[in-house]
């Protein structure tokens, strides 16, 4: 369903232009010529997003924002501020605006921000998860050209008639969420619900009540008895993202559910029995989390009956090209543009970049490039300048040598490019001549 957007802007031309552009993007858009008009519309209808000029006769954008926050509406607000008024923009952010944009603005920037909210809304809908995902979203595409991803897919296929708990490890953005879905929708439980919750984004109390539900009157605000996700997920799968962010006491409670399928609602006295499969994800180093006492070892053993480790994108570069094409196809329809492919130069840049934010970062880069590109191909110009400027590498604990080697190779190249001028090279690298000399020499040693 298309997002509903209200634009409050007293400059008629800007208003018309914004309405037209956002409609072209496929949103349902209404306009209001001043603050009062906007308020009437907000009071009589629900909008996902309000884009409001900060300065309007009658009622300002900030006042509209305050009304929305006071009524606790789930409308996200983007404030349009005048040039050079960072102060009022900051005030808007403090009052709970989602974002702001300064006039004169780039329409593409605004579209990007709206898309961000759209993504967030979609995600949130799943996280609060009470609208369970019965059977929807069954069509899942996972791009896998590299050997490591192919292995993961065949593993998922192999366990499709098993019911074991699964632990997914791997850096943030590698695709753990997607894999969790794939596991569920290819399993015997595919007709049951798939519920996902991110343990890092909720406070302990809210997480406890989301997971296990609560009895009426268990705490102030618990006006009615509520089922928790563990209960709603009965006969299906519960995906616990960033599980190590859960407090130790909640981990203990969870352990009991995982072991015995039994738990109490918050404030409840009757134990509830459920049949749930657990998939958990961790994006940090599991061993050190256990060593630090942040992740319970017994819970770890219960969950990792099967462990799937998804390597970072930079360790499976073969996936970069097909993923880029996939995202191009995925986002193109939203932008009404005719882009056929990538230029070789652009693809080379992508293939040589390290993606510390993994597939999610690649996805963002491609969507941004589609917005910016004016040619029928994605060219290197529409890729972020910074990924061309910097090389990013992981500090690999298992291999000290690579760090020395890296430094040496890098220093050597710089020296070479500067025609063997070591003083200039040291200056450029921000190190002393002595250390440059040490780096060059130590590299030789290994």
């Amino acid at each position, binding site marked *: 369903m298309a997002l509903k957007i209200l634009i409050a802007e007293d400059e008629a031309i800007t208003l018309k232009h914004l309405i037209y552009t956002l409609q072209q993007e496929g949103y349902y858009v209404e306009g209001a010529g001043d603050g009062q008009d906007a308020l009437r519309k907000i009071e009589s209808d629900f909008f996902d997003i309000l884009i409001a000029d900060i300065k309007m006769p009658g009622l300002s954008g900030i006042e509209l924002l305050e009304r929305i926050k006071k009524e606790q509406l789930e409308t996200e607000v983007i404030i349009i501020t005048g040039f050079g008024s960072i102060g009022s923009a900051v005030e808007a952010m403090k009052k709970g605006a989602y974002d702001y944009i300064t006039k004169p603005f780039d329409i593409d920037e605004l579209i990007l921000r709206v898309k961000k909210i759209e993504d967030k809304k979609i995600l949130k809908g799943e996280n609060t998860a009470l609208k369970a995902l019965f059977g929807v979203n069954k069509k899942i595409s996972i791009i896998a050209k590299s050997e490591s991803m192919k292995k993961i897919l065949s593993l998922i296929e192999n366990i499709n008639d098993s019911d074991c708990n699964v632990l997914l490890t791997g850096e943030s953005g590698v695709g753990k969420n997607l894999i969790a879905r794939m596991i569920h929708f290819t399993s015997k439980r595919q007709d049951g619900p798939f519920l996902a919750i991110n343990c890092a984004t909720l406070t302990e109390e809210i997480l406890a009540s989301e997971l296990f539900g609560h009895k009426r009157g268990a705490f102030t605000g618990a006006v009615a008895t509520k089922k928790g996700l563990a209960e709603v997920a009965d006969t299906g799968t519960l995906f616990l993202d960033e599980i190590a962010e859960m407090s130790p006491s909640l981990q203990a409670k969870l352990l009991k559910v995982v072991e015995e399928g039994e738990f109490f609602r918050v404030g409840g006295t009757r134990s509830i029995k459920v049949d749930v499969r657990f998939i958990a994800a961790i994006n940090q180093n599991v061993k050190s989390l256990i060593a630090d006492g942040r992740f319970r070892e017994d819970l770890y053993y219960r969950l990792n009956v099967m462990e799937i480790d998804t390597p970072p994108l930079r360790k499976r570069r073969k996936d970069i090209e097909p993923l880029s094409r996939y995202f191009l196809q995925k986002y193109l329809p939203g932008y009404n543009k005719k882009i056929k492919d990538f230029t070789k130069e652009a693809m080379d*840049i992508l293939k040589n970049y390290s993606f510390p934010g993994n597939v999610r970062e690649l996805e963002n880069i491609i969507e941004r490039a589609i917005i910016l590109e004016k040619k029928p191909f994605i060219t290197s110009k529409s890729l972020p300048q910074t990924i061309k400027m910097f090389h990013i590498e992981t500090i690999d604990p298992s291999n000290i040598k690579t760090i020395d080697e890296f430094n040496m190779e890098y220093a050597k190249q710089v020296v070479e490019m500067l025609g063997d001028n070591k003083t200039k090279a040291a200056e450029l690298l921000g190190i002393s001549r002595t250390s440059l000399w040490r780096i060059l020499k130590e590299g030789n040693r290994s």
Partner: protein
Amino acid sequence: MEKRNLLFVLYPEEKLDGLLSYAIDLAKARDEDLCILMVNKTDSPAEGNGHEMAREINTGDEKAGEYKKSVRAIVDECKKSGVQVNIFTVGADSVSAIENFLKQKGGIGMVLLGPRLRMSENITAEEMSNLAKRSSVHIFGMARRPLYAITHGKEGYCFPSTFSV
């Protein structure tokens, strides 16, 4: 609940061109806020005993000391792109200073080391890799691509195949 932070560790004298927008984009892609740790270069490793606590620079404070200019530039750029930023300073460029900071301040999602710090004379490769071993979050280092660094932003870059991991 608060967002997690991307910890960006920098020397105050590091040239910010491109660096900050890179960190901001990455933080956005990861849905994190920014936390910047400015480390002072010490001349001899012995000076940085690493037990020093980092202190937060009050970004609203006009008199942010010697970092005034870079701090203000950072805060402005972050504000413009809607990413929250907290800036800290610590008196020693040693691995333990970074490690202490990670303990002192929870909620860090990943660590990014600026190019100059990445090649710091006071941090050996072994110390660096020990840091990565003990830390539960991933640590990344940045380096300017040589040709790009030399031509300073002119269109042109190279792909050092030797750098791929």
